[in-house]
């Protein structure tokens, strides 16, 4: 599940900037961490964030689905084909530094994906628009960010409709891999062409409704911000800066 899930958790109630700042902090911190243990602590922090948002199960499941192919690739590249010293496990030998490297890289990917899935699941696009509008961000940028958050759920709904329609017309999805690949055409083409046609109409409709007017837009229901939340965002920024300072100090040392 990728996209907003309505709820009343602390993350749902938080200012959207706070939720995005948490996801952003996980992203930057992931690249500052160089040891498997610290990276996987960050994964645990991402999971704790998802649990706070009440989206632990869906976020972890989707993060695993998205990360597993990358883990497999990292395991082959670094674990099997990596440099010595190697550790024998039955008939197969693994590269010890390669496994450590794969754990760091795989952990980073998992932490980042988990952080952003949690942010997507707990940040209402509408509240984000209102928050950005209240801060005077031009609507073009607001729309770009908010529609990025909503594009996947919308595409999924559209794909489901097209799938049902094509199945009614006799499209068969089972069978061999080749048959499944062939079935992709009747699904992907209407999905892409339909989306493009609808975007045309949406651009016209939004323009007429003043979306491109450029002037200041009225925020109707801006989400409340608070001093503790602002402090948390600054704190996250300082924490990330400290993590990078520590990383560079270690690299020089």
């Amino acid at each position, binding site marked *: 599940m990728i996209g907003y899930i309505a709820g009343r958790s602390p993350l749902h109630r938080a200012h959207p900037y706070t939720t995005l700042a948490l996801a952003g902090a996980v992203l930057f911190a992931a690249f500052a961490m160089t040891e498997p243990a610290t990276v996987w602590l960050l994964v645990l922090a991402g999971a704790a964030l998802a649990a706070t948002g009440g989206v632990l199960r869906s976020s972890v499941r989707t993060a695993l689905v998205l990360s597993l192919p990358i883990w497999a690739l990292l395991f082959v590249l670094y674990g099997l084909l990596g440099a010595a010293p190697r550790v024998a496990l039955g008939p197969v030998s693994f590269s010890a530094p390669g496994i450590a490297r794969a754990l760091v890289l795989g952990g980073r990917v998992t932490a980042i994906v988990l952080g952003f899935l949690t942010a997507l699941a707990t940040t*209402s*696009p*509408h509240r984000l*628009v209102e928050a950005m*509008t209240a801060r005077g961000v031009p*609507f073009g940028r607001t*729309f770009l960010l*908010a*529609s990025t958050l*909503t594009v996947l759920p*919308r595409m999924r709904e559209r794909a489901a409709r097209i799938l049902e329609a094509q199945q009614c017309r006799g499209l068969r999805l089972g069978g061999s891999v080749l048959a499944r690949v062939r079935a992709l055409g009747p699904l992907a083409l209407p999905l892409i062409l339909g989306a493009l046609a*609808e975007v045309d*109409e*949406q*651009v*016209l*409709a*939004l*323009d*007429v*409704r*003043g*979306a491109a*007017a450029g*002037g*200041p*837009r*009225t*925020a*109707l*229901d801006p989400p409340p911000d608070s001093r503790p939340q602002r402090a948390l965002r600054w704190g996250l920024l300082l924490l990330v800066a400290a993590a990078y300072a520590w990383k560079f100090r270690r690299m020089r040392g």
Partner: protein
Amino acid sequence: MTPRVSLAGVTFTYPGADRVALRGVSLEIAAGEIVVVAGAAGAGASTLLLVATGLAPRLVGGTLAGSRTIEARRCGIVFARPWTQLTGLCSTVADEVSFGPACAGRPRAEVTELAARAMQQLGIAHLALRDPAHLSGGELQRVVVAAALALQPELLALDDPAAELDPAAADALYRMLPPLAAAGLAILLATPDIERAARVATRALVLEEGALVADGPPAVVLPATEVGVLARAAGCPAPYPLDVPALLARIAR
């Protein structure tokens, strides 16, 4: 009456098209008029709406020759497919209807009042707190029309607005137009549903291959449509009936 839009010898060609979509069209649409645009598919009715509202060629692209003056300070347009006209960023119908006035930077209280009035006009006040994503096609179309009205347009273009509506909802939508026109709104309506449109229209245009071939009162102009042709073939004297029940009643007499 003040013209809301004037076209003089307007010819429009879509980008990359090898034939013109509108050919030498001259007309004026005044405040208070409900002008129905009839014609076969591809005759140029939808294009006329885009040109009259200023969307073509500004956003659509293409080339426009001739003279066009849009006096209306604000134009609204409604397309056949309501889901393409939603912002996708609003979690309630009230927010969706408020979007346009909010983009215009109107004060919050005024935006709320405009949206409430528009929803009242369309009979969707009870849907104000519903999620637009969970509405039926008919309800959604009324939301889209309300969103257009909330902008207080002086010219409203409706492109087959009842395409997604059941007969009762279509009747209700058309019944709503005369009071709006009486309040000074100029309405340009392109639809294949000539029977319903003829009941509310004050004027009719007939397009053939992009050229304006008839312009006048619906009772005079619309016999050029299918019902009129049937009435002539059945030997009915002019003025011809505008819809099938009226034609049957006339023949029965």
